[in-house]
């Protein structure tokens, strides 16, 4: 398998305001790579710069040092001006908040990326409809975001990214704010969708169980400044049963190993 995305020696600190002490490093010496078709999960303590990491990969925040390569091409990450958010639609980003446009209905939100990319046609519309049905949103297409439940909004934002099929999708604790039941349901949905297409996914979470249940490989980040504390290959065979996996012997062993590493 070829390396699709590579992060090397990444570093980040926020700009120092005049007259203040220099702000601390949030990320320092962070390196990892993601293979094509791999589901990588990243665990770190909360407030540990995980969102900042994804923002830098998605090219909406500049790095203070290091490099990011996508398909061996160096991405311009060193100052805000030269950033190319989404790297020409090659990197999809499912953020922590759903960030739906409140004045667009569910369906219009899903179609938004296709519209702005000029790829709106019968074929892509049909694809959007398929995805909407796949996550159980059929019948809600014409509702505005404020009329949808938290889980439905999350599903909408998920398929809004899937609909234009970017080679890499970043996910930032997408299920963090949901109740346990909805979260299981959505993890199930995500697994199903992923099995269909085998996208490359970088999934950030603070929930160890979620990281093991979903991922092919899990990275554990240290406290600030973040860097990689450990790496765990997860060989639990797929398709996995999200609900039953908690009792899998390999799961328990992995859980304890990772638990020990997360400070």
């Amino acid at each position, binding site marked *: 398998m070829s390396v699709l995305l590579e992060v090397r020696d990444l570093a980040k600190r926020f700009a120092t305001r005049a007259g203040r002490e220099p702000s601390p490093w949030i990320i320092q010496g962070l390196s990892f790579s993601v293979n094509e078709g791999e589901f990588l999960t990243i665990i770190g303590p909360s407030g540990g710069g995980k969102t900042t990491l994804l923002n830098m990969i998605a090219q*909406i925040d500049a790095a203070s040092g290091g490099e990011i390569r996508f398909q061996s091409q160096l991405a311009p990450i060193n100052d805000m001006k030269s950033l190319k958010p989404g790297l020409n639609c090659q990197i*999809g980003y499912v*953020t922590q908040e759903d*960030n739906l*446009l409140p*004045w667009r209905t569910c369906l219009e939100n899903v179609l*938004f990326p296709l519209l*702005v*990319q000029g790829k709106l046609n019968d074929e892509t519309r049909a694809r959007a409809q398929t995805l909407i049905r796949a996550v159980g949103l059929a019948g809600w297409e014409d509702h505005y975001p*404020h009329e949808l439940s938290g889980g439905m909004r999350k599903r909408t934002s998920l398929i809004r990214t899937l609909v234009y099929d970017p080679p890499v999708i970043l996910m930032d604790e997408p299920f963090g704010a949901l109740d346990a039941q909805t979260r299981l349901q959505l993890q199930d949905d995500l697994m199903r969708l992923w099995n269909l297409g085998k996208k490359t996914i970088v999934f950030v979470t603070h929930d160890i169980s979620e990281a093991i249940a979903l991922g092919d490989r899990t990275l554990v980040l240290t406290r600030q400044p973040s860097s990689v504390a450990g790496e765990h290959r997860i060989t639990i065979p797929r398709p996995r049963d999200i609900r039953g996996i908690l009792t899998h012997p390999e799961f328990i062993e992995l859980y304890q190993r990772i638990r020990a590493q997360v400070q």
Partner: protein
Amino acid sequence: MSNAEQTMDLAAPNGFNWRPYIVRAGQIAFAVFLIWVWKAGSQSAGEMFVADPFKVWDRLLKIAASGELGHHTYVTLKISAIGFAIGCFFGVGLPFVLRRLPRFTDAIEPFIMASVGVPKYALIPLFILWFGINDAPKLWLIGLLVFYPVFIAIFAGIRGVDSRLINMARVVGASESRISREVIWNALLPFFFSGLKIALPRAVSAAIIGEFLVGNEGIGYYIEHSRQQMDVTGAFTGIIVATALVLIVNSALVYIDRKFSAWRPTDRHMEL
């Protein structure tokens, strides 16, 4: 809470709700009462001070038939519209320019905010002095009165646009002009309307006040001219027309705002 209680108390056992009818009847009664007070006032104070309501009605019909009403209304609305367009143009445009000049914005912001406190109407004599007795001083007045609420609303709106939505749109490949049209414009609309709700009725009021002091046509001129001629009935009629005009503009705006903002839950939940 107390509303709900009261509704329940009034609901008859068979579930028929009398409340709206009681309210409507009360409103009509109150309106009749006000007209009666007006009539009684005109009788006790004399028609030199309070015009007779029925004579006002007759006058209204008379000037409507003669075309005088239509002409004055047209003049007032025309100047309001032009002044409004000027004020709106700068009130909407300037924040978009300032958006790209953060340092300049920081430097001039306190001065703009201080100038909000200047009573604009007090500038009319100066405008008359500078621009003469024509439409220009009125346009300056209306333009300024419209500019401030629109500018402040849009300025606050642009600052309040959720940067996460903009980032999302960038990531999925939206161009900057698409972002301006789609994300910023839509997010601004509620702010724009809250500015308009203040500005549009103000434009009409300002036109009328301007006509008090300058000009020889328009509703404001009609009121002031009648007053100077001791034509109290005329002054009352003019004031009624002016009030009606502003109230109509108001309610039209409320209606349009509701239609445009179907996606918003309600004003109460809007995060300003």
